[in-house]
């Protein structure tokens, strides 16, 4: 049995709707070879998330994700508040990446209500979302480090995260959950001396990234624990509809900023970072490449930004548009983040659906865990760039 699982057969997910279920059929219900483990929600390695796994010896033969421990009903709450009141609660699912989760919401509301954003406002909005991408990715990297037993990689990103939190604090007035990107632009203009401070921080941070690479990504222990582990082929990644770093680690160079440039991203020179191997190492390394590229983007945003001008369009007190619907998305720290908003012509949305990267990447979890060893579970799970609170909404 173990040998059969170890030679992991090439996955054909079309004819087996749930691979875990299929494998499980080979066992009887009271088979004493199987042991059931519940991972989370109190397990320190799971976040606010639980999944049940069944083990045969060291090998995982079944995995059933059970999200919902931090489900808040964001979509229902949206129907009771007007378009502006919705901003503060919509950023709760990912407080580290709150600029991106309100970005696509703002784009969708602008499309519905016919709001034009001033050019300077577009630049500041893109800058905020790049800063938040760094904050989120560093936080994720810290967690990935600690769960692979690399405590230095927990300390360093947690400390360097303060570089960007400082900048965001100066820019928005809040360390996390800024409520800064709003329909029509951003709330406030950039403070005095912000550009110099930002360039200084970015220069220091790029030096640190080289050290990250040396101590973490070139570490033989990390290589052993991630290379060749949990391989997601390009074909499977497309079928499962995963997004963000998980998708780009499998050889698809899809980035919403490239595919559908919003605001001023078509004026920015950057490349969608991707790798071909599809294993946990690629999934851990693609966000690192993203962080490097994001520094390049931030420099250009600071350079090309108009020196003065409006940052926010004048809105009517309760912005509303004609009945209609919009689907807009941005590239967040976890991949494409889309909002589907239906408006019935009143100042409140009729229906809001948030399509988040974490929820889409969760589908890859049972796919990758079935057939893997239990010891590889943290490596596979955290490399999926999964944020339980965002998936639950």
């Amino acid at each position: 049995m173990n040998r059969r699982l170890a030679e992991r057969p090439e996955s054909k997910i079309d004819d087996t709707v749930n691979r875990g279920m299929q494998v499980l059929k080979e066992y009887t219900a009271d088979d004493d070879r199987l042991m059931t483990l519940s991972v989370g929600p109190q397990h320190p390695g799971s976040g606010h998330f639980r999944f049940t796994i069944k083990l045969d010896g060291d090998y995982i033969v079944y995995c059933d994700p059970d999200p919902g421990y931090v489900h808040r009903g964001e979509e229902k709450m949206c129907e009771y508040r007007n378009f502006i009141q919705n901003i503060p609660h919509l950023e709760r699912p990912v407080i580290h990446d709150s600029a991106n989760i309100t970005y696509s919401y703002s784009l969708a509301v602008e499309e519905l209500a016919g709001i034009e954003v001033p050019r300077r406002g577009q630049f500041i909005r893109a800058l905020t979302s790049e800063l938040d991408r760094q904050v989120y990715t560093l936080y994720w990297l810290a967690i990935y480090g600690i769960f692979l037993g690399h405590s230095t990689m927990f300390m360093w990103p947690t400390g360097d995260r303060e570089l960007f939190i400082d900048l965001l604090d100066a820019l928005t007035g809040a360390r996390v959950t800024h409520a800064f990107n709003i329909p029509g632009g951003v709330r406030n203009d950039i403070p005095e001396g912000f550009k110099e401070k930002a360039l200084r921080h970015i220069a220091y941070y790029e030096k640190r990234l080289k050290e990250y690479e040396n101590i973490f990504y070139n570490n033989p222990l990390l290589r052993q624990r991630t290379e060749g582990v949990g391989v997601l082929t390009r074909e499977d990644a497309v079928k499962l509809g995963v997004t963000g770093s998980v998708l780009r680690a499998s050889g698809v160079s899809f980035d919403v900023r490239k595919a559908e440039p919003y605001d001023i991203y078509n004026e920015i020179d950057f490349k969608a970072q991707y790798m071909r191997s599809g294993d946990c190492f690629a999934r851990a390394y693609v966000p690192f490449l993203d962080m490097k590229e994001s520094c390049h983007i931030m420099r250009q945003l600071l350079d090309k930004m108009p020196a003065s001008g409006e940052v926010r369009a004048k809105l009517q007190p309760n912005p509303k548009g004609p009945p209609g619907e919009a689907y807009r998305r941005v590239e967040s720290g976890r991949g494409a983040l889309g909002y589907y908003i239906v408006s019935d012509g009143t100042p409140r949305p009729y229906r809001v659906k948030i399509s988040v990267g974490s929820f889409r990447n969760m589908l890859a979890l049972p796919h990758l865990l079935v057939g893997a060893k239990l010891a590889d579970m943290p490596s596979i799970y955290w490399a999926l760039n999964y944020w339980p609170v965002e998936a639950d909404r």
Partner: protein
Amino acid sequence: MSQGSDPASKSNTPSDNLTRADQSHANSKTPPVPAPVSKPGTSAKDLSKKEAEPPAFEKGIIDRLVKEFGSKVRVLYIRPLRMKIAVDPADIVEIATHIRNALGFDHAESVAGTDYPKDNQIEVIYHLGSYGVPELEGHIMSLATRTSRDEARLPSLINVFRSVEYHERETFEMLGVFFEGHPRNDRFLLPEDWADIPPLRKEFRIKGR
């Protein structure tokens, strides 16, 4: 890094990596028109103008669909990068299969259900995207269908788009739409002891509101 990203090969994907959809594109007699670089409309005024004269690339995609299925496909709008069609529940699997095989949309980004008590209907809308066809990367095909609120049943698209599994399961518990053919129409995000109507139906009210 041995596996560092390789920007040079970004534009020309190796042919062995081509999906089935790519190959059907290559074989078809009418090659797809290169997608114009366009942004989705930023204002409603722009949109109404553009809707009067739909963008050529998007219109070409919809025309191919209408040519194949005729009156089974009702076109709701064609905007830059966005298209929406409505179909009957009986035809949805056939049309979705065609959208995947011939048009190249290979995954679902989201499945959203919307409750319309006035019409006594629930609309389920699949937002389909494409990773395999480079010129469709920015496009979203919205495939909508409607079912009665009293007996909400729809055929599942799980055998066409594998990526709808959790989205359909969420729609089941949030709106009470049963997906025939889906392996698990059961609890997902809500608490285990949830004993109320599906919460995204309009008659479910948040307490105190």
